[in-house]
């Protein structure tokens, strides 16, 4: 779906490469483990209050989605009444054009950015760069990714795959080319690295005339946009520049101001593992022109579709639009923890990425997107962690069926399809299954003869098998089928009675 990730192979091969990167494995296991534990402690602290809070959060977002058109019209009216200019963008192209034209109309060649998933999704930075406008990321992790000419690998912590030593290296090598250089005596202490980033960014904040942001929430009732962050860089971008453009996915709408309540409690606990995030910025149109308040004099809001109405039309998949981008599902995902985010080939990695990308672009578009719903064991840890109760496993299975349905006409059918049809045939009738099991018992006796491996409980194992079975036996022993199935035993012994089983 995105150009920055263009050419990514399907998940299994991308994952294979990532799994071989020992530094990455170590960085990820450590980082996800730390956030996971912090979140778990806060959820435990909430006790019996947590589940009702999740239900309330899910209900607010669901209410917004169930009547999205009405809430969006109300949002537009409120924003306009507050003095903001509203733009509608069908896709990435349109949204990027709006931002570029606002920047151009003010004659600037640079903008400062608040970390935002929507602008990453539409690849705003690349678009602006092509128009001769530099977009400076001001969130620490985004800055690391941008300076390193890297790709984001996590929703909240895009540079989660990097450790301190790597970050120091990137700062030393890259900062000078785009602004204030890193101090020569830079160490890899977190405080020292943060201070270097602060110095580097400060001149950009003070110079920039145009700020670009996303929004965590957009309140239809009042036209208030909300940005939740930790570092204060967002507050700077939202208040210092004269002009502010916010790119907001249409699913960010929340009907009323009061309904922010559960969401603002769920989000920090689920994302950073904090009771409250350090900075919550809210603004309703431009700041008062009399100079009594900080803030931009000109406010633009780009309401972005880019596949969201497609996702909305999917009865089972629609719930994915409740996502508040907390990344809890990434941190608890055993697959993500091992492969990292790049393997998903999108700015939305992990369990939410595995459903959101195919929902936004549709299945059957390319092999990479179609591989994402299969990048899960369906262990359910994501659903358990999700603050807005998105049943990710349910949506994964649903999307798998859409992928399969898209290939039903294939001639010749895929090997997997043939196997599944055969299984479906055998499992539709016990007598067919009995025949298959007899054959399997026979192969078991043959394999047992050939076997040079014995499993720890004395049962012969099939060694390394050829063909598709090699995917199993390459790294795992496989017991040879038993000579007699349970069914065979039941028949032969009259349910064990002939063996003296009572």
């Amino acid at each position, binding site marked *: 779906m995105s150009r920055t990730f263009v050419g990514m192979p399907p998940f299994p091969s991308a994952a294979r490469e990532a799994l071989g990167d020992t530094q990455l494995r170590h960085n990820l296991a450590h980082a996800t483990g730390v956030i996971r534990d912090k979140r778990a402690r806060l959820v435990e602290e909430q006790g019996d209050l947590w589940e009702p809070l999740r239900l309330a959060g899910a209900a607010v977002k669901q209410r917004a989605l169930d009547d999205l058109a009405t809430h969006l019209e109300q949002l537009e009216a409120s924003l306009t009444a507050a003095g903001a200019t509203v733009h509608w963008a069908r896709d990435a192209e349109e949204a990027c054009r709006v931002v570029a034209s606002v920047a151009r109309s003010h004659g600037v060649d640079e903008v400062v950015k608040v970390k935002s998933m929507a602008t990453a999704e539409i690849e705003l930075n690349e678009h602006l760069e092509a128009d001769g406008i530099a977009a400076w990321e001001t969130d620490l992790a985004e800055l690391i990714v941008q300076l390193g000419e890297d790709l984001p690998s996590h929703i909240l912590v895009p540079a989660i795959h990097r450790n301190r030593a790597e970050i120091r290296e990137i700062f030393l090598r890259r900062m000078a080319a785009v602004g204030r250089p890193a101090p020569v005596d830079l160490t890899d202490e977190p405080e020292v690295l943060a201070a270097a980033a602060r110095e580097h960014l400060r001149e950009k904040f003070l110079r920039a005339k145009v700020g670009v942001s996303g929004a965590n929430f957009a309140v239809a009732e009042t036209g208030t946009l909300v940005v939740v962050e930790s570092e204060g860089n967002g507050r700077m971008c939202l208040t210092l520049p004269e002009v502010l453009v916010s790119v907001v996915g249409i699913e960010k709408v929340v009907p009323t101001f009061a309904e922010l309540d559960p969401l603002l409690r769920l989000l920090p606990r689920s994302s950073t593992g904090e009771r409250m995030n350090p900075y919550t910025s809210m603004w309703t149109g431009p700041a008062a022109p009399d100079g009594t308040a900080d803030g931009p004099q000109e406010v633009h809001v780009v309401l972005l579709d880019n596949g969201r109405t497609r996702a909305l039309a999917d009865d089972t998949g629609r719930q994915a639009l409740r996502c508040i981008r907390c990344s809890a599902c990434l941190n608890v995902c055993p697959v993500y923890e091992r492969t990292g985010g790049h393997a998903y080939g999108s700015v939305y990695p992990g369990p939410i990425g595995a459903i959101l990308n195919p929902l936004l672009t549709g299945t059957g578009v390319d092999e990479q997107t179609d591989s994402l719903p299969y990048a899960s064991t369906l262990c359910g840890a994501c659903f358990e962690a999700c603050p807005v109760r998105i049943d990710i496993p349910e949506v994964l*299975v649903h999307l798998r069926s859409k992928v399969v349905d898209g290939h039903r006409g294939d001639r010749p059918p895929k090997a997997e399809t043939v196997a599944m049809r055969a299984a*479906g045939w055998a499992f539709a009738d016990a007598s067919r299954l009995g025949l298959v099991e007899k054959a399997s018992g026979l192969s078991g006796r043959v394999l047992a003869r050939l076997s040079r491996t014995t499993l720890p409980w004395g049962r012969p194992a099939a060694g390394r098998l050829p063909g598709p079975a090699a995917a199993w036996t390459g790294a795992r022993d496989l017991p040879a089928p038993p000579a007699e199935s349970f069914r065979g035993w039941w028949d032969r012994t009259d349910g064990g009675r002939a063996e003296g089983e009572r």
Partner: protein
Amino acid sequence: MKVALSVTCVNDAMFPDVGKAVVRLLRRLGCEVDFPRAQTCCGQPMVNTGYLDEAVGAVRTYVDAFAGYDAVVTPSGSCAGSARHQHAIVGRRAGETGSDPGLASAVAAAAPTYELTEFLVDVLGVTDVGAYFPHTVTYHPTCHSLRMLGVGDRPLRLLREVRGLRLRELPAADQCCGFGGTFAVKNSDTSVAMGADKARHVRSTGAEVLVAGDSSCLMHVGGVLSRQRSGVRTVHLAEVLAATEDD
């Protein structure tokens, strides 16, 4: 109480001793156990791979085979989860395509499928099943039993009553082992990486036996442990609970 055993296709074809253990255990506890011969598979392998149409026959066979019993018991959290949560999806699909218009209502009317430990603790009301298993054991709670069914600590309560058994706590127990059905072959590298971590945790406990309630997960982790020549064997929970001093 007339109980139908849903042995599961994996146990039927690959691990018949698990089925025998359930029969023995439930009879010992006074149940009349039947094995409806018409049963095949719950349909999960097809559903979880996205082949809903291919699962219709299996789900139809399942509901027909187990019609008329007081309870269906299965030694698999995953298959119980499939019967309770996925059969309705397949039923809906069969209605939409017209391949089996009555399936959805048949599914809705079907007797509940219990995972073994749910049946023992909730229906029979026992935690001491009179078992004897003199080994050092660690227990892996499989994902579907833990999160789809919510069996909680029922398996551990049962294991704690087993005479001779020394239970060692498994670190990061609630992390998936990496099996995941066709995930184990479609994404075999990631699956093996997860299995290797699970095996590492198992070995760190010093247990000689890894116990779980799903044969397929055990086949996966056991396959890794065996390839590592770790000296740890895998045993299904049903076999532990069925074992007595006479064995």
